[in-house]
């Protein structure tokens, strides 16, 4: 009870101007500034996570490009010259901007596709496979086991475009939608002449990333080992997940190693630069608001101490230590700052949860709990605000 009474008495003689509107205004400015700062960090962080994160947001984020060794007059006679060796792959893995590398395996065995009915055609078909993580959407039935007669395939969207816009009109054939193509069945004859196997292939998806027809890795491996000419078939193309393909160092790397690619996707780097401008502008505004807020807050603290100057001097004269009085003042004002910071944090966390749900509706994965940059911004601003207030209290009291 005694410590309580002491505090009540100290409150009565030291905090004469109570909680004025200036104090509330400064706390509101601090709250808005702090919330904006946290939100701008969150936006920046979320976007970075979408672009570079390890989650399933590949189609949005990094650019996928396929690279192959350039076929030149010098190497065109020698097929193995355009295959990637283990050393080549290592150097690509370590190149700037490259986040991951997948090997594209192509069929080393004959594949013959046939279709009956109105669309009757028969053609040799090149098949390739990439690791599943490089597919933008992995279809549900994207699997094949030896013995199974059903084979899922993914077709390049370009194939369908060529068929619909170039081939079908010229041949008087009907145009096909993606879903109707998925209903068709192709007969694939695999292997040489007599000893071949026949599969029923279904198109289960389309891809913008790869300009051929893809089959599950297990199928290509099976065919290559059973019918392949080269048992350990070389890698002719690589698929790369690239952070920023517009990086000049990356294109220099491709040139230097004689690699070709046809992808030049700069879409996301443009959006990224817009996000950076927006978050930077919000961040600057937030810091300005917080600056004004903390300035008014500190002025209020100093005004309170100036109003209590007589009492402070008398308390020191009867033996109270300046440190103890500073602690009392800090105990009065710091909880307000902590309250503001906590409220800003809760608002930002709630916004993040809402954003996570909204993004999930778009098929994007965000984290409900923000990452390190958010907490750094929170603790950084907390430390700066607390230090400024504590220092101003100490200075104001020691002036007496």
């Amino acid at each position, binding site marked *: 009870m005694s*410590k309580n009474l002491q505090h009540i008495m100290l409150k*009565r*003689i030291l905090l004469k101007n109570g909680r004025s509107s200036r104090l509330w205004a400064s706390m509101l400015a601090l709250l808005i500034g702090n919330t904006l700062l946290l939100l701008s960090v969150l936006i920046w962080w979320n976007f970075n996570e979408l672009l570079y994160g390890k989650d399933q947001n590949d189609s949005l984020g990094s650019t996928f490009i396929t690279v192959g060794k350039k076929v030149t007059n010098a190497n065109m006679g020698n097929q193995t010259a355009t295959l990637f060796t283990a050393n080549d792959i290592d150097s690509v893995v370590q190149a700037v901007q490259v986040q991951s590398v997948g090997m594209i395996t192509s069929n080393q065995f004959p594949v013959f596709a046939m279709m009956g009915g109105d669309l009757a055609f028969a053609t040799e078909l090149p098949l390739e496979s990439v690791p599943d993580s490089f597919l933008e959407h992995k279809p549900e039935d994207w699997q094949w086991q030896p013995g199974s007669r059903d084979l899922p395939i993914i077709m390049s969207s370009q194939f369908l475009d060529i068929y619909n816009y170039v081939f079908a009109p010229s041949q008087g054939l009907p145009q096909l939608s993606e879903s109707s193509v998925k209903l068709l069945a192709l007969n694939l004859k695999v292997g040489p002449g007599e000893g071949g196997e026949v599969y029923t292939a279904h198109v289960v998806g389309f891809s913008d990333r790869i300009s051929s027809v893809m089959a599950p890795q297990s199928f290509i491996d099976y065919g290559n080992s059973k019918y392949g000419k080269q048992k350990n078939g070389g890698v002719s193309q690589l698929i790369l997940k690239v952070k920023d393909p517009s990086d000049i160092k990356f294109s220099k790397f491709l040139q230097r190693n004689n690699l070709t690619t046809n992808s030049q996707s700069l879409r996301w780097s443009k959006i990224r630069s817009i996000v950076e401008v927006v978050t930077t502008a919000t961040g600057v505004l937030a810091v300005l608001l917080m600056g004004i807020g903390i300035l008014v807050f500190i002025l209020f603290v100093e005004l309170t101490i100036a109003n209590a100057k007589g009492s402070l001097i008398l308390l*020191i004269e*009867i033996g109270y*230590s*300046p440190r103890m009085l500073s602690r009392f003042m800090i105990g009065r004002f710091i909880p307000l700052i902590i309250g503001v910071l906590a409220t800003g944090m809760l608002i930002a966390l709630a916004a993040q949860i809402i954003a996570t749900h909204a993004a999930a509706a778009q098929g994007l994965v965000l984290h409900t709990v923000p990452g390190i940059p958010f907490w750094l911004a929170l603790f950084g601003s907390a430390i700066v605000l607390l230090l400024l207030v504590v220092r101003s209290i100490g200075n104001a009291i020691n002036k007496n």
Partner: protein
Amino acid sequence: MQLTLTQLIPQPLRDKLSMRPSGIWNCDLVFGVGEYVFVKAPSGTGKTTLMHILYGLRSDYDGAIRWGKLALREMTAESLAELRANQLSIVFQDMRLFPELTAWENLEIKRQLTNTISAKEMEGWLSRLGISDKRDSLARTLSYGEQQRVAIIRALLQPFKWLLMDEPFSHLDLENIDKARALIIEVIQKNNAGMILADLDEHTFFNYSQTINL
């Protein structure tokens, strides 16, 4: 804790004070533990200035003051607060109570700093000095005499080795002076402390070990 004064002189009064002889200004003095010192100080000789300098409230003086081993001028705000809370107490001439607190709260805010005297004992002192009925009155509504008695009690609510008193009985009648004197002596003896009392005229309220003309 000895009090040592070396060639002490307040800067603003230097010219004025150098013109006349003084038992303190510009002298080298040592006051031993438990001494009762009376400083006889006619108006204008710097009585309150001396008390404030000794208590560390002002530092516009030349010379040196040592409380025990501590050189007053070199002390930090924190060590000065420690000295005032535990070694050195004072009754100000102008009382210096918190006007917005009651008599009781004015005492309580001091008592709780060191908690050396119990609230019950403090209550006893209030009634000994005849101001029990004023304990819940705001200090600004008290008469000077009542304020002076509160100020005296407040000075005794801490451990101390020296008690400084600046005209402590100026607003009290003889009967009340006697009560206050008895209480002061009792607490000083309990603390094995000394006192320095400054007043305009000589009196015999305490058995002084020395009397000095300022």
